[in-house]
């Protein structure tokens, strides 16, 4: 079976302005959403406590809401259904720093008349730890960017590196925009998914860049745009195929993985689509817009070859030291 029959060279670069406009629109709406609505940070980043409770039979949500108001620590907490009607999650902004008192006990005591239940999870993050985690999250994203920037600069050229980072920002901002739009809770898992997404997206981008690099050497005399068209056309079946397969796996996780990994699978569910799109349609045009010089690259390559050849000759003349 073939997804895309005999190789056709699509003239992507001719349409690059259209793709750029679509992306720009998405990015601007995402930034608007982030600025006005913001992100729904979970306790991992702002501190607080999550208590997950499973009832035997349906959970009496209204009764739980009334009962927690009677306790001074739990009052003001939100009670929501979690995955199924017999499970609820209580979220409170407080955390207790005293090791001797446990909020789990408080909840057990407060809800003891609400039915038969089991406390399945108590996660508590102090406000200080929360802000530290947030800083760590941001700095880890920056570190990933720097690492990729350096690696791609070494293996390709700085304009390729910059283009791939811009494409990553594109993916990140749009993914955050979707998180904001759907009010998905941003927790540590979502951050992990974000970092994974960056890894995937750069992976796809590099595959295209690799073909461009090959084309630059193979088709001497051809300008950059047709080389890019050829590279993208040749990799498009691979990129869509791999992304589709990965997306299948993520989709099963998204639909059947349960509420607890919702944040994680949501980011990848959206992110893989955005990341694949940016790798195919956004990253390469940026290389052209950054005024990547084909002649310059070929000249540098020729010089490098010449140097290596000279060194080789020198070695042959004087004999190998080994």
């Amino acid at each position, binding site marked *: *079976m073939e997804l895309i029959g005999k190789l056709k060279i699509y003239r992507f670069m001719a349409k690059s302005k259209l793709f750029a406009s679509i992306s720009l629109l998405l990015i601007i709406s995402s930034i608007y959403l982030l600025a006005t609505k913001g992100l729904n940070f979970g306790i991992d980043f702002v501190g607080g406590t999550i208590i997950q409770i499973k009832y035997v039979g349906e959970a009496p949500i209204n009764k739980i809401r009334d009962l927690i108001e009677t306790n001074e620590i739990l009052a003001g907490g939100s009670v929501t259904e979690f995955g199924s009607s017999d499970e609820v999650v209580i979220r409170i902004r407080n955390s207790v*720093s005293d090791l001797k008192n446990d909020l789990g006990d408080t909840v057990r005591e407060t809800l003891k008349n609400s039915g038969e239940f089991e406390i399945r999870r108590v996660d508590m993050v102090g406000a200080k730890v929360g802000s530290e985690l947030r800083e760590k999250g941001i700095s880890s994203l920056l570190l990933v960017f720097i690492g990729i920037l350096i690696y791609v600069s070494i293996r390709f050229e700085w304009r390729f590196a910059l283009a791939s980072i811009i494409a990553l920002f594109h993916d990140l901002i749009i993914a955050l925009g979707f998180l904001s739009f759907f009010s998905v809770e941003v927790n540590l898992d979502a951050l992990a998914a974000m970092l994974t997404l960056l890894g995937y997206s750069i992976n796809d981008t590099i595959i295209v860049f690799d073909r461009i690099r090959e084309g630059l050497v193979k088709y001497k005399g051809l300008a950059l745009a047709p080389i890019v068209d050829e590279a993208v056309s040749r990799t498009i*079946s691979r990129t869509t195929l791999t992304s589709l397969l990965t997306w299948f796996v993520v989709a099963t996780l998204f639909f059947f993985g349960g509420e607890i990994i919702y944040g994680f699978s949501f980011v990848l569910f959206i992110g893989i689509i955005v990341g694949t799109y940016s790798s195919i349609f956004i990253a390469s045009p940026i290389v052209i817009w950054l005024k990547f010089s084909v002649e310059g690259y070929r000249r540098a390559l020729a010089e490098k070859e010449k140097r290596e050849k000279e060194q080789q000759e020198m070695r042959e003349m004087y004999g190998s030291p080994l």
Partner: protein
Amino acid sequence: MDKDDREKIEKHLRKIEFSSFIQDGDTFHVKLTEEGKLTLKTQAVEQAVETIRNRLDQFGLSEPTVAKSGEDKILVELPGVKNQADEQRARDLIAKSAQLFLMAVDEVHQQKVSVTSEVQAKAWGDLLLPDADDQNIKYLVREIPILEGSRLTGANVGFNDMQQPVISFQLDSIGAEIFGNFTGKNVGNHLAIVLDGRVFSAPVINERIGGGSGQISGNFQLSEAQDLAIALRSGALLAPVNLLEKRSIGPSLGADSIKHALIALISGFIIVVIFMNFYYGRAGTISNIALISNTFIILTVMSIFGATLTLPGMAGIVLTIGMAVDANVIINERIRELLQEGKTLTKAIEDGYERAMTAIIDSNFTTIIAAVVLYVYGNGPIKGFAITLTVGILASMLTAILGTRGFYEAILHNIKDGKKYFGLKG
């Protein structure tokens, strides 16, 4: 204060590490240097890690891990805490500072204790401490303790005449000597046994106590006395600990979420395998063999690392399947391309692998950069995810590049129609 005294004091003050002092008439101001503060802080955290580890080890949980995390944080992981009572006890053990002091009761002022304020007590050089059982009973004890818990060599639970649990402790030789001297000089006075700021008992000293052993009695439950003995044996915490973050997952939730993830993992895997077979024909089967070996390699390496199969770890495997497919797809696409250009199968396979190599290495390496950052910055479960991802990528490179290549070379002479083999129309 004459000159001799002053010199003596100065000599003593100089001995205090990481400090400087200023003399102001008869007053000395001693100040710790920044370096000193830092050393003290580091020592306190390291001592706390050691102490908490000791305590939890003696508590008898399966595999507690206690590790320093960041500058002043300690990460404690307790798998297998089954019920609320166990958790409560473990938490008490962690938090108990277990500072034991043997202190002299201020016999001069003790009668006036009910009308003494803290300020007044301080002026006398005393501390005003409550009784362990009854907050209303107070004691006035001399501020400078006779002995501290660091002089303990052992603490065990025993029973007194009324069959109530008590904790008997032994002192080291220096402690025993100090204790003997003090009791010898203070027969008839009271000795207060103070634990974590509360007076457990204040018996009258009847005679000189040699041998260096003593007893703490109070209204203890047996388990309480046992935990207290553990805490005393493993030493006091130099600094108080606060709870910053706590995550607990009930056994049923763990099993539940792993079941969900497992279903997702298996169904995702099946979709991928079917698709590969359908799309690439026989070559797809070879890729699938690589894929399955890859999954086994990940599971093996993870079990060597002793990694528990957590939810993020599973997600890591799910995602690695995607990555592993990728390497196979890149190679197969290249070979197809070369076959369509009219190359022979042998040549197509050789060139296909070679050309796919740079793409696979560069693309996977950048993903590993992200995984390494995840490992360095993430906490427990995310670290697991990063390990799985890295192992998975390395394994996929191994199986896709070396494994399948060897396969093709072994069966090359049996393949009649290369294009058909790679799922292309003739």
